[in-house]
């Protein structure tokens, strides 16, 4: 039995290698490591589509210094698989660099492997700050981090939410609630620090299990603390639960501010109906932002639509596209597969803010983190998520929710 299994897996292994690598010797092989199956598959695939469009575009324009780019897909649903797939890409496939990976857990595990193998890893979408905070030399990240999400949400209270409500931000009472996984804990923790630094009043800050089936006691806590603004970092189910149980308990804060996750999704908006009107959300740049501040955005959406037949399903494809495009540019400039040459070129690479489709700039720090990536403040208005801040990419004015 076991012998058979081994034989089958060996055959399958050969088949995948044959099927997906029609690479010629003079091609440049790049890995694309994302969760393509399992619970993260939807947004993992959405992220990959961004990379795919960037690569296709580059190949159509002659590839990297005349060499064609071949993308090699690797499916990593969790940290374990990420390690296995990263090993395959670096040792069997011999890729020059790897793009990834949407999920922070996947990225953290895969980068440990690639660093040892001396293969540069270009992170385009995972937000945990620790990914570029571990002193790894060949891990570079184009996208904004959890700290950026948190800072933008607190800044928004002062710059947007309070002025819209016509009150002094210092008089507003904040409740910071977050799911107790890595994502919620990171964002929630940074929000607390930033609120304290800016002198805002936090009356309640509370972690809860994202797998909870009842948040009514949390609602009562926040309600009896008299919070005016609720900042929630959450997934889908807990977002719905908190909204529903707040309505049942007759609790209406003056504003909700989400941090990506459940707050960005159309499904959630549809399920909540009118209750989502006026709710704020901090997230990666979305395709609905004002294209005047984001050159190339319209072209990206058109290319996406041509290739996949639908509108982008979230902002993930956009930020992955922008990041991948920059790193392909860097590979061309480095004109070498040597890891140190690539690192040098990454650190020297510059693009001013507002010069690309995500309205980001590029300037990598010593830790490999792009310091000119940001997140935007959005708001649900008439069933659509519109960008309201910063003004350069805003597509609508903020409104007072119901």
């Amino acid at each position, binding site marked *: 039995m076991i012998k058979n299994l081994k034989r089958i897996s060996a055959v399958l292994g050969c088949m995948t290698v044959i099927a997906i690598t029609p690479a010629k010797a003079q091609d440049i092989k790049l890995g694309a490591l994302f969760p393509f199956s399992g619970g993260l598959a939807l947004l993992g695939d959405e992220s990959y589509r961004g990379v795919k469009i960037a690569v296709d575009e580059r190949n159509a324009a002659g590839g990297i210094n005349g060499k064609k780019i071949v993308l090699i897909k690797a499916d990593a649903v969790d940290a374990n698989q990420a390690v296995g797939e990263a090993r395959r890409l670096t040792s069997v496939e011999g890729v020059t660099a790897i793009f990834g990976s949407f999920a922070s857990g996947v990225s953290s595990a895969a980068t440990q492997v690639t660093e040892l193998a001396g293969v540069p890893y270009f992170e385009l979408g995972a937000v945990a700050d620790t990914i570029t905070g571990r002193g790894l030399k060949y891990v570079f990240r184009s996208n904004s981090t959890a700290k950026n999400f948190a800072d933008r949400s607190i800044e928004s209270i002062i710059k947007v939410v309070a002025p819209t409500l016509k009150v002094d931000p210092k008089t507003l009472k904040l409740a910071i609630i977050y799911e107790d996984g890595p994502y919620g804990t990171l964002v929630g923790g940074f929000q607390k620090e930033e609120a304290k630094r800016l002198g805002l009043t936090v009356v309640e800050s509370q972690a809860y299990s994202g797998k909870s089936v009842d948040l*009514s006691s949390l609602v009562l806590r926040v309600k009896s603390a008299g919070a005016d603004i609720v900042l929630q970092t959450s997934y889908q189910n807990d977002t719905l639960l908190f909204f529903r149980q707040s309505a049942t308990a007759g609790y209406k804060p003056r504003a909700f501010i989400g941090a990506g996750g459940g707050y960005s999704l159309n499904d959630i908006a549809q399920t909540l109906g009118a209750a989502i009107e006026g709710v704020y959300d901090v997230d990666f740049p979305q395709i609905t932002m004002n294209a005047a501040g984001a050159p190339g955005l319209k072209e990206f959406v058109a290319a996406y639509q041509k290739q996949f037949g639908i509108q982008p399903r979230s902002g993930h494809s956009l930020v992955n596209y922008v990041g991948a495009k920059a790193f392909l540019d860097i590979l061309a400039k480095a004109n070498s597969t040597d890891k140190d040459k690539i690192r040098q070129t990454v650190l020297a690479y510059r693009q001013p803010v507002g010069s690309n489709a995500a309205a980001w700039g590029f300037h990598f720090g010593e830790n490999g983190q792009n310091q000119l990536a940001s997140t935007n403040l959005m708001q649900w208005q008439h069933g659509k998520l519109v960008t309201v801040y910063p003004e350069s990419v805003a597509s609508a004015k903020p409104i007072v929710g119901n």
Partner: protein
Amino acid sequence: MRSLGATVSIFIQLLLNGLLLGGAYAIVSIGLTLIFGVVRVVNFAHGEFLMIGMYAVWLLAQHFGLHPYVSALLVALLLFVLGASMQRFIIQPLLSADPHIQVFATIGVSTALLNLALMVFGADVRKADVVFGTESLMVGPLTLVSGQLITFVVALVVAAGMHLFLQRTYTGRAFRALAQNRMAAALMGVNVNSTYVLAFGIGAGLVGLASGLLAVQYPVFPTVGQYFVLTAFVIVVLGGMGSLPGAVIGSLFIGLIDSLAGFYIGPDLKEVVYFLIFLAILIVRPTGLFGLGRGSE
């Protein structure tokens, strides 16, 4: 400082929330305790049964406009068939194998169903669009949702009905005989295999009923079952494996702790609190509150 009146009304609201949450746990736990108690199989696929039931309810609501309370009965039948087939074709061939093997088999079914749902439905959250059952009711300063009250009442009625069935009917007695000793029951003329199939089917059917009731309050997504089922396992062990009154009282107890600890201690610590109480109870009564005692298998 809050006034005394406000403090008291929050406390009563918390008690009410806790009992109603207990009702939701109870309706999920009743079927689990039956399978646990009679077939003596730890059914790790119970949560996925709930998930499948909730998807079925959602599909019936989307395509035929059936209210979840109506489709609950149809889905209960569907899950009866699913549960009975699982017992007949997966558990029964393993009956004389080591009990661990059956556990692994149910874990296998659980993983397969979970990933099947991910393939078919994706990871999105879906919710049946209903009005009846989602209205907020105000009773003085207290608020509750009508569907929670309905779930609570149905859970109690079903538990009482099942209790009568187990005590008063021949089949019920056969269930209990099997729970106590499979060999002796077989010697007394109980058809072990078909009784197991029936018990597993009824247990799964009850979770089908639960899915109709819960789909009014909760959205469905592939991992929804796991949200409920870990707590349901705790409840079943706490109440005593196979004991219906134990499952109901355990559910209400856990619901109350969840609500009170969530408010007075903190939502991130409520699980710590109820697992500590759970451990304490098991140390004092290893077979649970209403367990059959050490004599049973």
